[in-house]
């Protein structure tokens, strides 16, 4: 087709080229020739002309000329034809070349387009190309027609050639001219078209260029990324075989990887994991990330962060995965280091805060304890003043009513003292200072006394009962003071929270509880103290019919300063210390304190304690003694009595006159005891000076009657202890306060008696041996004012002490040199040597062991030297200043000169008592 067209075109081109070429080279000449030869050429015209003008003039002469010119014309025409042919050829060649050129360009453009379309999937079919082709096809058609025309013309010409040559040629020339013109026009049109198509080509080329550029940029960008990103990229097929891989740091060649799976390529830790992970992603169809640590022979231990996403084909089927891995080993190491660091930091911080907390708590506790101790002491001092004064008051002449009131006052005061002692006890238990004492006591007695005491201050219509089973030993060994304390606490609690019904104590022997078996070894160790003792466990229930304790409050019941609820605290008052002390004491003694309770029905506090059973020999002795003692009681007591009941006798002391129940329903034995009656009975009863009670008196003064046995057993070991370590004063002091408060809480009036007994006994002792004297504090008063001396001495006497007198500092030094004192009361302003100087010299003596400083100060050398041999106190001698509270006698100055404390003048009984309490232990 193309070939055919080409030949056709060539033919046509020939024609066209001829016509186009004509005017330039030959046109004018031919025109001239034709113009000249027209008449000659055209026969008819010639004839007509010749007929008209020259038929006569030239016939034969002109013929050769004519022939000649005809020949000439023929050759000219031949030339022309030749020339035309040549031109034709030339034009057609040129046209063909141009066509070819065009064709090639078109082809090229098409190829480019195709390429672009193929390359970039451009699916457009160049709409502008079509018209061009169409037009050309139109042209072809026209050309074909023309060719036919030409062919027809040519035939005609050939025919004409034969018959009428000039006219024919004329005609032919004319037709050729026309054709040439047409051809020229066509050529022009074609050129225009060509230009047009070239233009369109150009306009087509522009977006392609742009796209190409973009492509190039994108490619460059991708290259940059690929070359610089520290990542591994891969594409794997469904079977996880690599189809593509990019690795910035290739350690394997592509052919080693492509077509293989991870497992086939690598060996070692993490490979399987990554494979599984990829498979998982493939199965789930969800892109995901994971950090996998590889340990392969190829590149050691490295951690990669791997991102895998599934790849789908157009149908939505999974055909593989894209995977991207980035090495994050360093980061992981860093991260782990950071994590560890952070962890360490957190741990350290936690420890720090814990430590701070502990420190804080410790500090708080210490401060609290310090405060507690200080407070307790602060309270105790004035309180002992109150109690002491009341005691002194009770020695004066009082009528019955006054005495009764005073007794109540004293016992209340003693109760408060007891409470303070409790607080101190608690801190002692907590700090581990508390020592338990093993003393013989009778549980029945203890229960009875506790109930009695409770009954004495009972203001409600409650029945107090004690129930002790027969198997409870008559006497056991334990720390009776503490046990009493526990019982008293529990009972007073029970009473506090009970409005009607009963409050009672029940004692029974039980088998060794499970919690104690672990401690069996310790118990065994305790037992080998020479005495033939066996252990017995006694369970003590303190029960009431009170308000009860809600179950949720039980856990915090034994916490310090906690009560079942704030409502209770408001309603019933109390420190919330009691149960805490009880629990601690019970635990200290190796027992257990528990509670069971029902709201509105009552509570039972149970404590189980181990006791040692005393030998039966002791028991019989004691019993005799005990029965002797109890003879005087209106209702003789029985040591084996197992049941007591106390009814409130409100009418006797308190005017509100609560109901007094009859004895009818009391099952066993009833003791109706008015506390006042009891006290009076005791006071009235002078006969209790058995052997043992004498011992008691030495320590405590006539602490009598029922409680006597108990106290005696309490204090005997103490007095022994006193002599043992020679530092007994603090001990006896403590026991004295304990026992006195204990005694007075039961029978307050006795206290003064005992005080008196003590003092009188001390005066006797003064004449006695030195051994006795050590138990009595020696006090030196340094004072120049006779009146002051007189007053102070009298006060000391009241307090049960005697004292030596020195009238000035020098005398004081001499006195101290001669014998050792336990306390010095020193006036500040004195003649000869004032108190401050004297104190300084005494302190210097204590430090250096000689009186050199005093001698230097002008104290008589002789007396001092003579007596140098005397025993001097190794302890710091407490020196209390007596100041008039003026500027000259400031307390600071006292302290600065080595004094321990000061009493402001005038000295009062209370101040003196406090001072003695503080410094005479």
């Amino acid at each position, binding site marked *: 087709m193309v070939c055919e067209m080409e030949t056709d075109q060539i033919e046509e081109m020939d024609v066209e080229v001829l016509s186009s070429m004509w005017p330039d080279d030959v046109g004018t000449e031919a025109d001239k020739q034709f113009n000249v030869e027209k008449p000659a050429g055209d026969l008819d015209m010639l004839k007509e002309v010749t007929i008209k003008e020259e038929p006569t003039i030239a016939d034969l002469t002109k013929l050769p000329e004519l022939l000649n010119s005809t020949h000439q014309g023929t050759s000219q025409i031949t030339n022309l034809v030749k020339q035309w042919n040549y031109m034709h050829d030339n034009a057609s060649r040129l046209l063909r070349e141009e066509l070819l050129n065009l064709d090639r360009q078109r082809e090229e453009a098409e190829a480019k387009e195709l390429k672009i379309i193929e390359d970039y999937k451009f699916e457009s079919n160049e709409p502008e190309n079509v018209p061009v082709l169409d037009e050309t096809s139109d042209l072809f058609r026209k050309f074909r027609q023309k060719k036919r025309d030409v062919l027809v013309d040519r035939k005609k010409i050939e025919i004409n050639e034969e018959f009428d040559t000039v006219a024919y040629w004329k005609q032919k020339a004319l037709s050729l001219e026309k054709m040439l013109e047409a051809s020229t026009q066509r050529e022009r049109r074609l050129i225009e078209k060509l230009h047009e198509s070239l233009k369109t080509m150009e306009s087509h080329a522009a977006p392609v260029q742009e796209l190409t550029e973009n492509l190039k940029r994108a490619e460059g960008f991708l290259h940059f990324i690929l070359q610089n990103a520290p990542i591994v990229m891969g594409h794997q097929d469904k079977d996880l075989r690599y189809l593509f891989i990019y690795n910035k740091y290739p350690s394997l060649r592509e052919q080693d990887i492509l077509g293989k799976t991870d497992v086939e390529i690598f060996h070692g830790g993490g490979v399987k994991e990554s494979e599984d992970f990829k498979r998982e992603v493939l199965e789930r169809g969800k892109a995901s990330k994971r950090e996998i640590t590889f340990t392969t022979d190829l590149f050691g231990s490295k951690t990669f962060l791997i991102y895998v996403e599934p790849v789908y084909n157009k149908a939505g089927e999974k055909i593989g995965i894209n995977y991207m891995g980035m090495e994050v080993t360093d980061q992981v190491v860093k991260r782990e280091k950071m994590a560890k660091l952070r962890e360490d930091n957190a741990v350290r911080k936690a420890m720090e805060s814990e430590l701070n907390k502990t420190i804080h708590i410790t500090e708080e506790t210490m401060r609290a304890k310090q405060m507690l101790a200080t407070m307790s002491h602060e309270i105790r001092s004035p309180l002992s003043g109150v109690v002491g004064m009341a005691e002194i008051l009770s020695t004066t002449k009082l009528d019955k009513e006054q005495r009764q009131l005073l007794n109540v006052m004293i016992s209340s005061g003693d109760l408060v003292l007891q409470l303070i002692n409790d607080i101190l006890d608690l801190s002692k238990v907590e700090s581990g200072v508390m020592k338990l004492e093993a003393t013989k006591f009778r549980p029945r007695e203890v229960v009875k006394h506790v109930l009695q005491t409770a009954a004495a201050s009972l203001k409600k219509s409650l029945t107090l009962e004690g129930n002790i089973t027969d198997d409870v030993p008559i006497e056991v060994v334990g720390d009776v003071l503490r046990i009493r304390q526990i019982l008293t606490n529990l009972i007073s609690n029970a009473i506090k929270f009970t409005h009607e019904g009963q409050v009672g104590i029940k004692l029974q022997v039980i088998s060794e509880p499970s919690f104690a078996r672990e401690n069996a070894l310790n118990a065994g160790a305790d037992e080998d103290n020479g005495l033939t003792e066996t252990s017995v466990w006694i369970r003590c229930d303190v029960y009431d019919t009170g308000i009860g304790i809600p179950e949720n409050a039980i856990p915090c019941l034994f916490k310090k300063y906690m009560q079942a609820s704030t409502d209770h605290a408001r309603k019933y008052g109390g420190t919330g210390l009691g149960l805490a002390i009880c629990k601690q004491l019970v635990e200290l003694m190796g027992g257990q304190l528990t509670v069971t309770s029902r709201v509105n029905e009552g509570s039972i506090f149970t404590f189980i304690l181990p006791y040692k059973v005393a030998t039966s020999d002791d028991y019989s002795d004691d019993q005799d003694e005990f029965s002797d003692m109890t003879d005087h009681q209106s209702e003789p007591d029985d040591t084996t009595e197992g049941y007591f009941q106390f009814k409130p006798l409100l009418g006797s002391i308190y005017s509100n006159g609560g109901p007094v129940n009859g004895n009818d329903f009391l099952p066993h034995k009833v003791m109706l005891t008015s506390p006042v009656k009891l006290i009076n009975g005791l006071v009235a009863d002078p006969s209790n000076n058995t052997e043992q009670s004498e011992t008691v008196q030495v320590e405590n003064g006539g602490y009598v009657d029922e409680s006597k046995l108990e106290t005696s057993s309490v204090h005997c070991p103490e007095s022994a202890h006193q002599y043992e370590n020679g530092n007994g004063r603090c001990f006896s002091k403590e026991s004295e306060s304990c026992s006195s408060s204990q005694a007075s809480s039961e029978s307050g009036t006795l206290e003064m008696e005992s005080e008196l007994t003590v003092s009188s006994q001390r005066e006797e002792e003064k004449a006695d041996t030195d051994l006795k004297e050590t138990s009595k504090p020696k006090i030196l008063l340094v004072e120049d004012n006779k009146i002051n001396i007189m007053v102070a001495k009298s006060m000391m006497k*009241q307090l049960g002490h005697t004292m030596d007198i020195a009238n000035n500092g020098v005398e004081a030094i001499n006195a101290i040199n001669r014998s050792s004192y336990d306390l010095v009361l020193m006036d500040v302003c004195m003649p000869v040597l004032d108190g401050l100087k004297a104190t300084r010299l005494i302190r210097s003596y204590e430090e250096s062991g000689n009186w050199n400083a005093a001698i230097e100060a002008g104290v008589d050398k002789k007396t001092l030297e003579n007596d140098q041999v005397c025993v001097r106190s190794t302890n710091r001698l407490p020196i209390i200043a007596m100041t008039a509270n003026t500027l000259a006698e400031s307390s600071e100055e006292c302290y600065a000169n080595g004094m321990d404390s000061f009493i402001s003048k005038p000295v009062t009984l209370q101040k003196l008592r406090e001072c003695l309490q503080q410094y005479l232990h």
Partner: protein
Amino acid sequence: MDTLIAQLQRQFRDYTISLYHQGFLDDQFTELKKLQDECSPDFVAEVVTLFFEDCEKLISNMARALDQTGNVDFKLVGSSVHQLKGSSSSVGAKRVKGLCVTLKECCDSQNFEGCVRCLQQVDIEYKTLKAKLQDLFNLEQQIVQAGGRIPQVDI
């Protein structure tokens, strides 16, 4: 008899209270009274007697010292007044004590005029107190003689 005792007791009580209220005595005197017991029934009287003797002696000492015109030994006066102050404080002689404080101040500032004036006042005061206490003791004695008990006086 009982009415007499009661009357005496009331009188005693009133008188004691008046002494306190008028500032002749203070709590220290109460302290002294507390110290008086069966063992030393006349303790207060003894102490007070001693005190007045002391007063007399000290005051005359001071008067002598102040009499040395132009050459007054203020130190001597000071130590005496200190003594007196201590004694009066111990006894509870409130007014005397107060005057002693003033006298001591005058003495410390070597104020002769002041010292003399104060001393005179002390002299008057202690004598007044002596008389008043004498009355009080007389009352006590009367009560005791009448078989009554000396009442506790709460101030």
